[in-house]
């Protein structure tokens, strides 16, 4: 579980995050949504420790990040997996080498053990015949799967995904969403997904934080997002005619039942 308390982040005179407090639960897919420029990526990078906080606190399983010793922070980092928007695969390494990389860096496992573990997670993300290919030789959807495999290879307690299905076709995007949700439940990890894909919101949003102008404007579940009358949320989530209809149908069926 991750708790954040009154998290603020400024860049020069610009306050990007304005005192956000919330918690992200273990075994659930926690979504951070909001328009471009609302502070989603900055929030994710603050939680990951890639940005210094201006003020506030991040608490990992009841331990404040600020009170951790450098060695504890390093160990915590090894307990995190991250799927970047552009996959961030190492382009000089093959798929298998990319997945094995965290183990090579932080474990004393033999090459055979590492290869065996890598193949387990590569199979888990449904990648076939890709082990010896370079990232440039596989599709965007496959790259995302490799990134997920690399993120979970060390059995992390925390999984972070920044726009995991951006640039993917709808079918592949749904596959990636489902994969993230399955892995979250299977390994009981705390997953944070940064997205503005409304399909993800409807499908896998077990907890949703809505950011607007660097502030938390709403939080709830994918069921509650249909019923909310928060104007900021409805303007964002139901900006397209299709999702307006989806909401209408959902509410009608909900009233009937």
């Amino acid at each position: 579980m991750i708790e954040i308390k009154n998290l603020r982040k400024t860049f020069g005179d610009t306050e990007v995050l304005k005192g956000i407090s919330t918690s992200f639960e273990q075994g659930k897919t926690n979504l951070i949504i909001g328009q471009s420029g609302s502070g989603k990526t900055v929030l994710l990078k603050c939680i990951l420790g890639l940005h210094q906080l201006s003020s506030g606190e991040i608490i990992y399983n009841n331990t404040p990040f600020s009170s951790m010793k450098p060695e504890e922070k390093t160990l915590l980092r090894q307990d995190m997996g991250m799927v970047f928007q552009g996959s961030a695969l190492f382009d000089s390494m093959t798929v298998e080498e990319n997945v094995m990389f965290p183990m090579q860096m932080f474990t004393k496992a033999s090459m055979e053990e590492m290869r065996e573990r890598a193949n387990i997670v590569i199979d888990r993300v449904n990648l076939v015949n890709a082990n010896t290919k370079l990232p440039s030789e596989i599709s965007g959807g496959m790259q995302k799967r490799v990134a997920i495999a690399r993120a979970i290879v060390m059995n992390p307690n925390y999984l972070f995904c920044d726009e995991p299905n951006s640039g993917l076709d709808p079918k592949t995007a749904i596959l990636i969403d489902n994969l993230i949700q399955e892995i979250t439940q299977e390994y009981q990890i705390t997953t944070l997904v940064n997205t503005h894909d409304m399909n993800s919101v409807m499908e896998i949003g077990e907890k949703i934080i809505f950011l607007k102008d660097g502030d938390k404007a709403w939080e709830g579940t994918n069921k509650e997002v249909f019923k909310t009358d928060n104007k900021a949320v409805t303007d964002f989530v139901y900006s397209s005619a299709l999702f307006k209809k989806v909401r209408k149908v959902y509410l009608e069926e909900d009233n009937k039942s």
Partner: protein
Amino acid sequence: MLIKTFGKFTKYSVLRKLILREIDDLIIGSLGIVAFISFFVGGVVAIQTAINSDNPLLPKYLVGFATRQSIILEFAPSFISVIMAGKVGSFITSSIGTMRVTEQIDALEVMGVNTYNYLIFPKIVAMTLYPFIIVISMFLGIFGGYFACITGGFSAHADFIEGLQLEFNPFHVTYAFIKTFLFAMLLATIPSYHGYYMKGGALGVGKASTTSFVWTSVAIIIMNSFVTNLLLT
């Protein structure tokens, strides 16, 4: 940046592979262009000296002597280093810069890797072998001069060899290697800095590579002037 580079070390087995790859990219990969430039510039230096010293009062061994001095003191260590600022420096900046743009550095940081040590330290170690490039450059530069003089009829074999051996001061070679080593450190660190701290996208990588080349060249020229004043005057 340098303090962090020599901070928390990457696992030895990983580091060893990285160092070998950098030696291949930075040192072995530069041999061809260095050999080509050295041989032909050495030839041109010898021909120019021969053409511009046709006064009968000047000794015939002058061509070999001038070629040796030019190549050992300046051409091989300094001129080749400025060329390497373009070749090796741009490669270092663009490779680290591309990793920055594509979030590969962020990915390493999230995993808890000391990215300074992982990315920059192997380059510094690889560049300690840079003096070997300069040895080859010196040899091929002088050989190019000899070859051009003999085949072009600008100097006799015996005169050229006499010039090469005349008043040879071993300290000049020491001086050349001292500055070569210092240039190697500049070649590894300045481009790494520009790549690591670059901002922007693909255009930013291009700008960072250009800036890196300019600053590395400037640093080499200034260092050259400083070391020459310190050691030879």
